[in-house]
């Protein structure tokens, strides 16, 4: 139950971010693109799975502190076993456990990199996230 509440809270903050960002960035001359990083998983997770979440979150926070604060870049972990996850999973076309970067209509799947590097070489995962997120922020 606690866990469910936690995910519900994460989901709520994520959706409220969606709602508030355009207003904040509207004052700028060019509307900054929003980049959302999602990690979808099931209740039961392996060690690598947990590392994928931890490392991606760490990477996003370290690489884009300002953008995270402004809501332009976000990291959200979603449990597919929660019924409330369905809408987001459908929006992101999550196919089971996955690490996705969503920006507008673009959907970039970096699940393979996440699982390859999260435990053995987190820097490589960080670099992969940076490349993709930078591309979208341009």
């Amino acid at each position, binding site marked *: 139950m606690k866990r469910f509440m936690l995910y519900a809270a994460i989901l709520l903050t994520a959706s409220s971010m969606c709602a508030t960002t355009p207003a904040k960035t509207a004052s700028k001359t060019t509307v900054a693109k929003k980049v959302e990083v999602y990690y979808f998983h099931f209740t*039961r*997770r*392996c060690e690598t799975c947990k590392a994928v979440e931890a490392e991606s979150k760490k990477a996003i926070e370290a690489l884009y502190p300002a953008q995270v604060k402004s809501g332009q870049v976000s990291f959200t972990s979603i449990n*597919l076993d929660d019924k409330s996850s369905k809408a987001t999973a459908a929006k992101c076309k*999550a*196919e*089971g456990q996955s690490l996705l970067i969503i920006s507008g209509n673009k959907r970039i799947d970096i699940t393979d990199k996440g699982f390859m590097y999260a435990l*053995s070489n987190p820097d490589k995962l960080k670099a992969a996230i940076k490349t993709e997120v930078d591309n979208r922020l341009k």
Partner: protein
Amino acid sequence: MELLQSILDNSQYAFVTAFILGLMTAISPCPLATNITAIGFISRDIDNRKRVFISGLVYTLGRAVSYTVLGVVLFLGASHMKISMLFQGWGEKLLGPLLIIIGLLMLDVIKLNFPGFSTLTDKIGEKSKNSYWSTLLLGMVFAMAFCPYSGVLYFVMLIPMTVASASGLYLPVIFAVGTGLPVIIFAWLLAYAVGNVGGLYHKIKVFELWFRRVVSVLFIVVGVYYVIVVYFNP
């Protein structure tokens, strides 16, 4: 694991990648548990060394059948999202109860006439003609039990290579050989290294009866492990 990953990173050939992915699946915790159960299951015919080794191959063939059928279904255009979600979400949840039921069937606690399934009541020493079918079925079922890590290896890494073109459809077979390799090796060891000991036991029918009981209990123990891990999430 890191060695495998570095090979995977530098691999130029799809078949090498598929094989390494299979090996990585085989040594990840949960297929390891099913493989150990499978080794117990196929070594119940310990008095017939050839049979044990062939069973190891049949089990791997069973895995190959499941992986290939799934691959073909996805190649033919089934919704990747639905299939992947279904197996990643349910494969493991059904495995625990299923293992417990198989264990109970083998122990004769539950009585059910199931083709190809030999229980303790079968005349000891008289081999059921269908017993390769049960081994094949076991491989097929175990392959379907995708765990968090193996699910990603199969659906995220292997399937995209497989469905890219019809020529990739052989890759799940290579993957299956990788996943079943520990079982093949153990079957080979049991058949040709421990096989002599089996010959010694050949006359002692009691040994077989007890060995079957041990295997049944192994199924139940592994089943209980899965139920606890999946449903109670310690």
